[in-house]
Every structure is written in C-alpha cells, then in structure tokens.
C-alpha cells in the first residue's frame, strides 16, 4: 500500500483501547477497504438499529454488527442471518450521524460471506442465486421460472402456489421471456471468477 492512509492509522491496534489479534485487525481493515466506508467511525448511537425495518427479525441488529466488525469478529458477523435479512432500504445510511453507508457495508459483508462459504440464510442465498441465473438466461427477469426454480431449490415447493392461477388470470405473468440473455451473460463472463 503506497499511501499510509488516515484510515490505516486509525485502525492500528496500538491506537485502539482494545487489543485485537492480527486476524481480527485484518478483518476490520478488509471490510473498511472493500466497502470504502469508515466502520471505525461508528460510536454506537444505535440510530441504524432504531430505524431498521427488519431489526425485529435479526439475530444481531445493525449497530451490533458494526461493533463486531470494529472488533474484528469476522466469523460471527459473516455467519449471522442479519446480513441476509438486511433488505437494503437505506434508512441506516440516510440517518447515520457519522455518514457511514451502513447498507453498503452489509453488501460487502454478504459478498465476503459468500466468498468464504459462510452464508447462513439458505432462503435469501437461494433466491439471489435463482434471480441472477434467471437474468443470465433471459436478460430480463422472467417471473414464472424464477419462482419455480426458487421453490424447487429451497424446498418450499408450494409457496405461493395458490397465487399462480390468480396472477395468470389477471394477466400478471408474462408468457414469453426476453431474449437478451447473451447481453447479460457477456457481463457475467467479463466478471469471471466473481460470478455467483
């Protein structure tokens, strides 16, 4: 690293009141670097948690995740369900007094959890994977096969089965998929190993 950035100085263990192991420090730094967000600036005011619409369903709330990231508790954070329950509504990002883009930190944590094979929420991971495969195939979302694939993979075979007929009768399901899959596949191919 060419620049000894302000960020690096601030996350050095000798300037922190709590001593972190080398591994813990590396995790904190990786999250800060990849997200571009100063997680180390969080002072636990709790506004992110107070405004989070899904905090009620989380195993650890957003402010706690921020604290655990500061403390380098990688495995606990990456194995949490909470990072997958975050719906990306951006309320935390909008309200953070330290201007940390908390929702973006959640994106980074999900990316890291997948890379390390630590993702725990089977439903959300299955849905995301089915969605991204769907657009690689057709270019645009084709709801009928997306729902079918999700149901098959997640084992929730009959989820929303009662709505299919209604949606069809209301003309709310497309009958033919788009044919722009190749355009999207080229983008995934160019991303190479990053493909999910």
């Amino acid at each position: 690293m060419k620049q000894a950035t302000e960020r690096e100085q601030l996350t050095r263990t000798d300037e922190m009141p709590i001593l972190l192991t080398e591994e813990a420090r590396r995790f904190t730094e990786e999250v800060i670097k990849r997200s571009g967000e100063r997680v180390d600036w969080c002072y636990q005011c709790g506004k992110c948690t107070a405004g989070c619409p899904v905090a009620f369903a989380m195993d650890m709330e957003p402010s706690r995740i921020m604290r655990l990231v500061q403390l380098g508790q990688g495995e606990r954070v990456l194995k949490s369900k909470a990072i997958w329950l975050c719906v990306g509504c951006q309320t935390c990002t909008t309200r953070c007094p330290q201007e940390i883009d908390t929702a973006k930190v959640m994106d980074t944590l999900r990316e890291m959890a997948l890379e390390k094979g630590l993702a725990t929420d089977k439903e959300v991971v299955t849905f995301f994977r089915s969605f991204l495969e769907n657009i690689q195939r057709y270019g645009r979302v084709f709801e009928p096969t997306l729902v079918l694939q999700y149901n098959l993979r997640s084992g929730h075979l009959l989820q929303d089965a009662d709505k299919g007929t209604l949606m069809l009768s209301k003309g709310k399901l497309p009958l033919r998929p788009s044919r722009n899959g190749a355009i999207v596949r080229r983008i995934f191919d160019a991303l190479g190993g990053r493909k999910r």
Partner: protein
Amino acid sequence: MTAYAYFPGCSAHGTAKEYDRSTQSVCAKLGIELEEIPDWVCCGASPAHAVNHLLSLALVAKNLDLSPSDTIVTGCAACYNRFKTAVHALQHDRPLWEQVKQIVQPTKLNGRDFRVLHLLEVIHEFGLEGLKERVVKPLKGLKVACYYGCLLVRPPKVVGFDDPDNPKKMDELIAAIGAEPAEWEFKTECCGAFHAVPHPEIVLRLTSNILQAAKDAGADVVSVACPMCQINLDLRQLDIQKRHKVNFNMPVLYFTQLLGLALGINEGELGFDRLIVDPRPVLKDKGLI
C-alpha cells in the same frame, strides 16, 4: 421537446403491465415523449448489488450505453435507485468507473452526462398547473395515501428526489387532479421488498403496518410509484387475511392509473381489473367511474 429514454424495468412486462400501459397513456396525453431503450436488460435489482457491487454497476452501465438519450426515465423505484447509484459512481469515482468500463466495453458512453429521473419527477417537471388544466374528471372526494417506499427517496445524497422523511411530489400530483392526499406517517416505510420470496412473514408484518396506517389516516386507496411496493401491498393482502384474519380491502393503485382516470383516459387502458384488490367499487362509490 426531445424524447426521454424510457427504461420500463422487468416488471413492466409481467406483474406491472398496467403500470407500463397507464404510463404510456398518461405521457401520450401530456405530450411527454418516451422512447424505450432498445434491448434493455435487467438492472440487477437487489440481488446484484447485495452480492457483487461491480456487477450491479455494470448492468446499469450496459443500459446507459444502449440508451438513445442522456435523460432516462423509469417508473420503478428500484431501477431508479440502481441507475442513480451507477450514475453517481460514474460522476464521483473515476477509478471504479474505469473497472466497470473494462467489463462492459461500452461503445457510446464517453463524454455523456446522464440524468436519471423517476416518472413522478418527469410529470412534476411537466408542471402542476399544466396537469390541472388537462383534468377532465377531478377525483373529488377520493382520499389517497401516497406511498413512496424506500428507494425513491434514499439515500438522499445519491437520489436527490425529495425530502427523505416527508416527500411531497406524489401528493402534489394527486392534489392537482382533485383528490385529497392523506396526511400519514408511513410514506417512506419499507414494504419488505424482495423478502416476499425468501421471508414472506417479514413482508406481511411490514405491509400490515403500512396498510393499517393508511386506513387509520382515512385513505380510500393507496397510490404507489413502484411495481415491487405495489405487489407487496396489494397481493399480500390475501395472506394477511388468511394468516392474520385482517381484511384491509385497501386498493393499491399506480399513481399513473389515478392520473389517467382524471385525464379522461378510458378505463380499459388503465387496467383497474388487473389489480388484486379491486379499486372499482370505491371509485364507483365516489362517482368516478
């Protein structure tokens, strides 16, 4: 006036056909010209940015490259947010954008300065007075709870749409067509978005709260500007009834359907029959259809 490049979004051809159709009718009526981006592809929605930042930017960049105009309009709050985020990166993070270009290999992106608008903004810019003048059937007596959701208004630094806590643009359009916007506090509360598939119980809880607030505010209908919000608030009323034994029977219309009605566009083009909770009884009751 030059045409806006129109990005319909994937739902426009499926669950939200009535949004697309009423959008086209209303814009035609107002003389707002829309030109669909040829061969547009999915913006990646939540699943792309949730697991791969570069992918989410690349999918939007591809659409920008295909766009016939530098001013892009979409009716979907989620697509709007993705486009805004990508254009923000294009304007503020050159190194990141260079990586995106490597992936997309654009042919027509250089030197272009994009402006991304939600359809609400386009009609708002068209002018409230102009809209009022064209109203043939004021929606008198109809109380409307305007629901904006998350992605239209947040984060304000990136989208710059309106006041993130108390947006007014849709309320002003609704007032211009003679209806009464409801005062309520759930305008920008989250509907649960994609959790409708992986964790439907979350969506049921959040949408119940929103619908209850609309009802408490005395609203006859809810007006939305996003296909995801619409289907969560409308379709999920079936599950709320089944599991929580509460029947809101609250019609959830696209704002373009209400505008279209006031502008005298015929009912068939507006697709009221496609909505799950039928809005026609209340519209009939108010003498509007």
